């Protein structure tokens, strides 16, 4: 069964909290192969985490 974008993006979000099961990963891989929107969503979700983590190492970004 094909995942919808809502389901695929939910899995991409959950992957930030827990390892996905094999079947989930397989469904997601299939969906992402055909869906650019969800591919971008996945990238952006990890960009967000990455930016936040790195911002915490930058105390010099504090306002005055």
């Amino acid at each position, binding site marked *: 069964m094909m995942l919808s974008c809502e389901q695929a993006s*939910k899995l991409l979000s*959950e992957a930030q909290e*827990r390892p996905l099961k094999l079947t989930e990963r397989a469904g997601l891989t299939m969906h992402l192969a055909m869906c650019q929107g969800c591919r971008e969503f996945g990238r*952006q979700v990890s960009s967000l985490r990455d930016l*936040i983590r790195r911002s*915490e*190492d930058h105390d*010099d970004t504090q306002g005055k």
Partner: protein
Amino acid sequence: MSAEPVNPLADTDIEKLRQEMLAFARLQLNDAHLAEDAVQEALAGALKNSSSFSRKATLKTWVFSILRYKIADVLRGRYREPVQQECKDCSTDDDSYFDSAGHWQTGSAPRAWGNTDQLVTDEHFWRVFDACLEVLPGEQARVFMMREFVELDTHEICDALEIKPANLHVLLHRARLRLRACLSSSWFNAEAQ
């Protein structure tokens, strides 16, 4: 490894924040003593994790998200509603991002942000980010900050908020959808809004 993170708030900032919280809590609770208690508790709870927030604006959003939660607790007690509340942001189906088949709505499909490497030091970007965080529904903002800034895991968040992991996953998904949509339109100009 970086040095011990600095608390972004000076004492005068905290006092100013406390006053704003008090005004907010009084308005919500209509009781000066209850308001004082709620603010005291929320502030103490929030400042424990203050070093996770390197920007004042984000810390303020965090503190207020905890205060809202405390206020909801007080109101719940006052009206004797059942303690085990439904997760309210979980049921509101405001997901206009997807059509009835669950596919991205026209215009909602995420478009490329491009290179984000330089953004971490861009104060302008973080102002937009904080503004986007602030307009998230309270519960979503709170769990997102617990997860991404305080870096708690699923267990810890679910224990603290007495919600189920499934609810947490829904909340985080919604939070990420909204936050990325807000950043896309307010900063990256990726999708037309």
